[in-house]
């Protein structure tokens, strides 16, 4: 009897919540599938803090043509099943979700099929499936700015330029030290393609996710190989431990090149001195941008900022959240231009907004974010929009730029891989690739 009552109550409660909230006018709702507990809490709190700060700033300046952004957080703990539950819970709320950003590979996979059915764009900022840049097969997925494949391409180009030309990479040894999961394996096809093309020797050394805290064996191998470079493709504690262990085994830190998820303050500060002069990729270089100052003044000075620790304002994860905020707001503005100014838009219209993003230099300047992110322009065939990255170096206090210009991914190397891989997905799922109308 108990159980029956509970069930009946749950059903009734759910029916009530579904019916009780009519769409509110002039508000644009964004669900935030954030995580502030667990292994990756440091990244989650910084990133979502940045997104929320930007939304609050936009609202403080009168919203998007008068439309205010509302949002609700839902704790996922980086667990895919909880992320899916959060998504299902929030997708119909407050007039419907406009777009969603789970900041987690597992969670993004769980949402991949759902967003296409619900017509809600899924953004995966610098992670997720690289082949989802193909908007014909993945109309509702946007790996904005750059993907892992673009990053791998940029990394090899950077190493080439460091050697003094791509041809000089011939005969060199490069170690791909990676998190042994979908995340770390994603770039392997691209790295393989480059190894074949440029003639360097690629050695892949995995680190089991469960034992990221102990890398003595892997670095002992690296010490014997004496590679010219080590690509560090890690996340969370693995990055800190890698830097620490490299120092312990006497491997020079200058020969390590980290990915952008290995290039935040949270990765290097706990490593202490071992991280000095460590170099990583980034798509949101650190700097003192007018936008960050504005947020400091408008929000944090009045106690309305989202980060609890004010030292983290302008940190890598925070900037990444701001960049996401910029793209969300610009996509909404875009969609409003087409579908009616001053009116909230639907997920479908938001999709059009994302697919026709054009954030150029003038735009970035107006936002006070020149150099904070690359210029980008999306289209149906290119949901990524940019593919450009920079290289940064940790000087013991903050990240400073190494490359002046953005490194562009070599599209000719990547495009075939993307088409092949997305064609396989389309065949698995029985999708006919085509550009969405609108």
């Amino acid at each position, binding site marked *: 009897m108990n159980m029956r009552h509970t069930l009946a109550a749950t059903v009734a409660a759910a029916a009530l919540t579904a019916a009780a909230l009519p769409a509110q006018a002039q508000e644009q709702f964004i669900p935030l599938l954030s995580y502030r507990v667990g*292994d990756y809490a440091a990244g989650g709190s910084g990133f979502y803090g940045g997104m929320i700060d930007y939304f609050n700033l936009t609202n403080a300046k009168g919203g998007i043509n008068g439309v205010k952004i509302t949002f609700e957080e839902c704790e996922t703990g980086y667990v895919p099943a909880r992320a899916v539950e959060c998504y299902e819970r929030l997708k119909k709320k407050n007039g419907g979700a406009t777009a969603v950003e789970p900041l987690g590979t597992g969670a993004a996979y769980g949402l991949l099929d759902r967003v296409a059915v619900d017509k809600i764009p899924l953004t995966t900022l610098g992670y997720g499936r690289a082949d989802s840049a193909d908007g014909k097969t993945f109309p509702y997925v946007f790996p904005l700015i750059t993907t892992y494949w673009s990053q791998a391409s940029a990394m090899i180009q950077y190493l080439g330029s460091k050697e003094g030309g791509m041809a000089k990479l011939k005969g060199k040894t490069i170690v791909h030290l990676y998190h042994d999961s979908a995340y770390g394996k994603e770039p392997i096809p691209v790295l393989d393609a480059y190894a074949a093309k440029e003639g360097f020797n690629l050695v892949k050394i995995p680190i089991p996710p*469960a034992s990221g805290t102990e890398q*003595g*064996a892997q670095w002992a191998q690296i010490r014997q190989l004496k590679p010219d470079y080590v690509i560090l493709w890690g996340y969370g504690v693995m990055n800190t431990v890698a830097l*620490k262990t490299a120092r*312990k085994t006497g491997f020079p830190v200058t020969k390590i090149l980290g990915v952008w998820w290995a290039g935040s303050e949270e990765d290097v500060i706990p490593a202490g001195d071992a991280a000095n002069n460590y170099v990583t990729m980034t798509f949101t270089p650190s700097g003192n941008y007018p936008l960050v100052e504005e947020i400091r003044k408008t929000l944090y000075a009045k106690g309305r900022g989202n980060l609890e620790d004010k030292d983290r304002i302008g940190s890598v994860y925070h900037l990444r959240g701001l960049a996401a905020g910029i793209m969300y707001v610009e996509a909404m503005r875009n969609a409003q231009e087409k579908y009616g100014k001053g009116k909230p838009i639907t997920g479908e219209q938001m999709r059009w907004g994302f697919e026709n993003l054009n954030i150029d230099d003038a735009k970035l300047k107006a936002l006070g974010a020149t150099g904070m992110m690359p210029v980008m322009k999306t289209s149906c065939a290119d949901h990524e929009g940019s593919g450009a990255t920079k290289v940064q170096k940790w000087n013991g206090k903050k990240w400073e730029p190494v490359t002046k210009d953005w490194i562009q991914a070599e599209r000719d190397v990547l495009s075939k891989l993307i088409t092949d891989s997305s064609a396989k997905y389309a065949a698995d799922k029985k999708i006919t690739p085509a550009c969405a109308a609108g």
Partner: protein
Amino acid sequence: MNWQAFIEVLVGGLLSGVMYSLVALGFVLIYKASGVFNFAQGSMLFFAAMTCAGLVGKGLPLWAAALVSLVVMVALGLAVEKFVLRPMVAQPEISLFMATIGLSFVIDGLAQIIWGSTAMKLDLGVEDMPLEALMDKTGIAVSQFDLLAAAVAAVLVSGLAVFFSKTKVGRALRAVADDHQAALAVGIPLQRIWGIVWGVAGFVALVAGMLWGARNGVQFALTSLALKALPVLIIGGFTSVPGAIVGGLIVGASEKLAEVYIGPHVGGGIEAWFPYILALGVLLIRPEGLFGEKIIRRI
């Protein structure tokens, strides 16, 4: 075969093994005295490291921070004993085990509410760098920090051994471990002994937490160190302090050697399961670990 490299991997592995032993020690203490498999040991370690690093961040000198953390950890141990374990006396082992997992959620949450979720660094004043003299002479890299950790572990284990065998409390502890009811019958205050054990476990967690925190950075992943300690416990036996040390050495050395010399032939990453398979092998020969007490079963 390159002997230099082999020795380097072996020594590095043995020293890592000592670090595992430090974590395993906390498990052994509590299991021995009260039959509880304390999964929250990893969280206690995390809590200790966070407290210590957090206090240093607030400007306290290291020794003072360590002292305050010690008081906090012993208090935490006592509180756990009083509010979680005592109401559950004589429950099935598995329920106790689950309660400690629930406990780990509480401790993790508490640590992050107090100190935040960002990673911190903890500097013990010893650089985690290869010993230069040895490096120059033989080309073998051995970290001086790891040597310090090994020394600390040695002191800790001998201290515990003396404590167990020479002091009155220690003898009472062993009596409790042997047979709760008999110990109670000869007048040993069971609850006080358990309180002491949990307090000591808090202290061990602090030592392990400070060393691991200095080695890897103070962050949430410290909680998962419990997983590193498990194969050590299986091999050494859940109830043996020397077993924890020997088990740690075996696991540390073998997993590193396996990863370096077998790993590349099968795609790498075998470290994740190798210690467990090894432990399984040991169990098939000795079902209660190398040093565990032999379980005699009667109908």
